[in-house]
């Protein structure tokens, strides 16, 4: 390697780099041995257990609540009602953000005070020596309700005859927003061809295998609250609980031990968890609450319930001219704090049709409240919906123009050399690679052969469908976007504190958190590479507000893109300090030294001079060996945020093949492909598995998952037996490939990857199903695409 080339390489490109290399996860080694430690695995001395009385009605007035019998039941330490809890908090939540002008929301108390607004809303907490005894006592709470009519249907939520859930708001309207560009009306008027359709998306929920879990430990003499909780965002929870319970932030410590899946669902604030903390404060004893699966279904946030009317104008030659969508989004009874319940609709507006070059776009969203579980952010917020709608329209346009689905996309995607650009939805985009992704997908699918096979199968009466769907995904949001300017207590930057300890070990404490994606491993890879030490010399700490610098946690595919850059910067500064200390010790210019494999070496020759362990020993113990002018810090904190960009946008394209049984309506997934561009990849295997896992989560919503409510707003399938999730037998193998267009906003160049699969799977499988049904003149427009939906589309039922 010439000196010139070597000079241009960053430490990330060094021959011994861990960045770009698959290494296994320490957390995985622990988990396979059954040695993980999740919240419910923690027991504390004098610990008590909580169970909740919840509203059986979607909308009802509390006419009697007598807890005396429960209070005296065996083993019971405390029963607290919603009213009593309300007296212990500073103020209710208000789920609005100023970035959503005109948005209305009602104040939300942690538990029902006099009126329940959804089935499952907590009413009272019962704390006892065991969960079983707490549940026994909860049965003894005497409670009478006056049932009220419920708002159960988003399509009638604004009708005069529908009860207004929060009279102070005047109606059930949460938010309205319209965005647009160009001259939509003229474009549709002048269009050769207009395709239109109405799409329905069912409600679903996260179903993390580990449910929500919290162990609250209030130390009365110390006035200190410690919460062990299965959370993605410990610092946010710290701020919110401190405010709500009237404790200074610095006296609240949040520890997120191993987290058994979260997917956005564990980034919100929940009334039953606040009640658990308040109970611990009242008792001065640890109180544990583990949501059981049945209460998870009626208390974890829901998502995705949307009805969308959409149309697209296209020229006869196949150029997309304009898109218009009208979104009706069904929120729950309150706007979830602090991220609100209108974000999903907002994302649908901005990303629909996002891969394409059309200039005319109008999108309107109406978000309404209903007497159902509150909705909010769940993996890939809005993208599964927006991509499904946009990509369905594009396929319909292709069929109308007589173009192949791949061809119409090639014709209309933003060109790889056309950035920076602005989408018709108003998103500034740069460094995307739609064209490269399409070309790679075509190759990997062996698309032409699949089409040829499909034609043969059709003659045999087999309805094979081939789907293609492009997507964009907003990842790693910046502070100039929604939460930052919206006023939320959510950190959009992230942080790393890295230090050299006396034994030569590197401790890397980060504000982003681990839920099994491999965040800790990835941060360790970046730190080890930047510093020049073996990976096993680095220990990453996350998920503890006492031990880590303040950060936003893991959400919106931000951990590597934002947290990773903070690690890179912090490790780079520590490296510089170590080299200058070494320079002082060795009486050599720092610039002539390097760190390789945990040793200070002569740059260029890699001759070993002194180990990092020696620097640690001298820097902490034998300071007399250093000149007086050198005061070691050996600890660096760095933070990173986006400056002007709203997001780091990513893109990709998926493919899928399915067989549709036109007699039974059953869809068999055969194979799927994803080509996506998350910039620089730190750990290839972990990135691939994020895509695969996310894709299957998207398939769940597209094909099976549905929170089904009846006319009285009762959830009728709230068990894991009735709410269907993807299982191994039905899932396909997924081929994953990447295009690498690093983002220029950071040195690391990483974009988010965790939600891309989820963002695109529903669109591509819907297109595949409709590709199968097209010769029959049928079209599925509803998710989940159950056999019943397919048979209805075929006119068979």
């Amino acid at each position, binding site marked *: 390697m010439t000196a010139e080339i070597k000079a241009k390489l960053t430490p990330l490109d060094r021959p011994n780099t861990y960045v770009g290399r698959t290494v296994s996860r320490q957390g995985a080694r622990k988990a396979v041995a059954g040695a993980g430690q999740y919240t419910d695995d923690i027991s504390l001395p004098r610990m008590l257990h909580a169970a909740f009385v919840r509203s059986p009605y979607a909308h009802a007035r509390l006419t009697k609540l007598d807890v005396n019998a429960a209070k005296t039941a*065996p083993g019971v330490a405390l029963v607290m009602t919603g009213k009593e809890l309300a007296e212990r908090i500073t103020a209710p939540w208000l789920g609005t953000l100023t970035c959503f002008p005109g948005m209305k929301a009602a104040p939300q108390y942690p538990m029902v005070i006099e009126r329940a607004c959804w089935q499952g809303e907590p009413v009272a907490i019962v704390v006892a020596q065991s969960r079983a005894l707490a549940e026994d006592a909860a049965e003894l709470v005497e409670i009478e309700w006056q049932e009220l009519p419920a708002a159960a249907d988003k399509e009638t939520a604004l009708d005069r005859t529908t009860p207004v859930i929060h009279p102070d708001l005047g109606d059930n309207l949460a938010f309205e927003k319209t965005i647009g560009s160009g001259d939509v009306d003229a474009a549709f008027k002048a269009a050769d061809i207009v395709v239109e359709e109405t799409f329905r998306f069912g409600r679903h929920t996260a179903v993390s295998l580990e449910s929500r879990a919290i162990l609250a430990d209030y130390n009365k003499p110390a006035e200190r609250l410690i919460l062990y909780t299965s959370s993605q965002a410990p610092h946010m929870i710290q701020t919110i609980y401190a405010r709500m319970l009237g404790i200074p932030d610095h006296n609240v410590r949040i520890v997120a031990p191993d987290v*058994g899946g979260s997917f956005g669902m564990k980034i919100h604030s929940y009334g039953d968890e606040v009640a658990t903390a308040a109970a611990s404060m009242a008792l001065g004893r640890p109180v544990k609450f583990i949501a059981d699966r049945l209460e998870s279904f009626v208390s974890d946030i829901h998502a995705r319930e949307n009805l969308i009317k959409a149309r697209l104008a296209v020229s006869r030659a196949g150029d997309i001219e304009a898109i218009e969508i009208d979104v009706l989004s069904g929120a729950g009874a309150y706007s979830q704090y602090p991220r609100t319940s209108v974000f999903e609709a907002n994302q649908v507006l901005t990303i629909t049709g996002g891969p394409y070059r059309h200039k005319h776009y109008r999108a309107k969203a109406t978000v309404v409240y209903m007497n159902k579980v509150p909705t909010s952010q769940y993996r890939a917020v809005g993208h599964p919906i927006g991509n499904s709608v946009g990509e369905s329209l594009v396929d319909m346009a292709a069929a109308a123009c007589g173009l192949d689905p791949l061809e119409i996309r090639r014709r209309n995607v933003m060109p790889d050399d056309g950035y920076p650009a602005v989408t018709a939805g108003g998103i500034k985009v740069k460094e995307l690679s739609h064209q490269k992704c399409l070309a790679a997908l075509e190759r990997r699918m062996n698309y032409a052969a699949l089409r040829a096979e499909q034609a043969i199968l059709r003659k045999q009466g087999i309805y094979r469908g081939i789907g293609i769907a492009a997507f964009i995904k907003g990842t790693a949001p910046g502070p100039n976007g929604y939460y930052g300017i919206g006023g939320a207590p959510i950190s959009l930057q992230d942080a790393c504190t890295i230090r050299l300890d006396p034994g030569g070990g590197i401790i890397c404490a980060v504000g982003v958190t681990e839920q*099994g994606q491999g965040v800790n491993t990835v941060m360790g890879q970046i730190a080890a590479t930047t510093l020049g030490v073996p990976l096993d010399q680095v220990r990453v700490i996350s998920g503890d507000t006492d031990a880590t610098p303040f950060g936003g946690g893991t959400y919106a595919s931000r951990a590597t893109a934002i947290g990773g850059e903070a690690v890179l910067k912090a490790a780079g500064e520590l490296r510089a300090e170590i080299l200058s200390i070494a320079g002082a010790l060795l009486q050599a210019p720092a610039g002539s030294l390097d760190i390789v494999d945990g040793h200070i070496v002569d740059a260029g020759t890699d001759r070993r001079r002194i180990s990092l362990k020696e620097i640690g020993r001298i820097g902490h113990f034998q300071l007399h060996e250093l000149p007086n002018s050198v005061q070691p810090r050996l600890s660096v904190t760095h933070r990173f945020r986006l400056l002007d960009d709203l997001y780091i946008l990513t893109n990709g394209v998926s493919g899928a093949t399915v067989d549709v049984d036109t007699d039974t309506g059953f869809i068999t997934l055969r194979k799927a492909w994803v080509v996506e561009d998350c910039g620089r990849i730190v750990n290839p295997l972990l990135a691939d598995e994020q895509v695969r*896992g996310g894709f299957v989560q998207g398939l769940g919503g597209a094909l099976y998952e549905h929170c089904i409510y009846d006319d009285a707003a009762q959830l009728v399938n709230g068990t894991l037996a009735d709410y269907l999730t993807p299982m*191994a*037998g039905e*899932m396909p193998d997924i081929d994953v490939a990447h295009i690498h267009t690093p983002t220029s906003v950071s040195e690391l160049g990483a974009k988010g990857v965790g939600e891309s699969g989820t963002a695109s799977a529903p669109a591509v499988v819907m297109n595949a199903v409709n590709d199968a049904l097209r010769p029959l003149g049928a079209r599925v427009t509803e998710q989940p695409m159950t056999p019943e939906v397919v048979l209805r589309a075929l006119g068979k039922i």
Partner: protein
Amino acid sequence: MSLADDSLEETMAVTMTVNGERVSRAVPVRQNLIDFLRTGLGLTGSHIGCEHGICGACSLRLDGAVVRGCLTLAVQADGAEVVTIEGLTASGEAADLQAAFVERNALQCGYCTPGMLMTAAELLASDATPDRDGIREFMSGNFCRCTGYQAIVDAIETVLRKRRRLA
């Protein structure tokens, strides 16, 4: 569902062998085996995902067969031999499978993993040699929200082929 104070519960004396160790306890008659193992014996490696027999997170071995710990009462295990993920690990029986899970990243959050391993170990111990679809079928009683299953199938397939000397 944990139970703390025995005096508040109707209990029954049971003796069983858990991971090779004999244990005698008075267990509440209504307590699930999974709760007894987790809270009574501190064996927190087996997890609880649904408590109604669907997710498989609580899978463990009872007298040689994999059962749902949430659908089995602790008193039903009286006189039985119980093996949990902790025992499976200590015996080394599934060391190759566990290593393959780590190498293939066949787990993310790891919450389903002990149950997956108990189920997969049963397949490996049988004389069946299923193909990928067969493995998927066999594993269909264990829910994983994170991985999308492909890596799990890969890991099991790798070990199956090695053990059957097919690879």
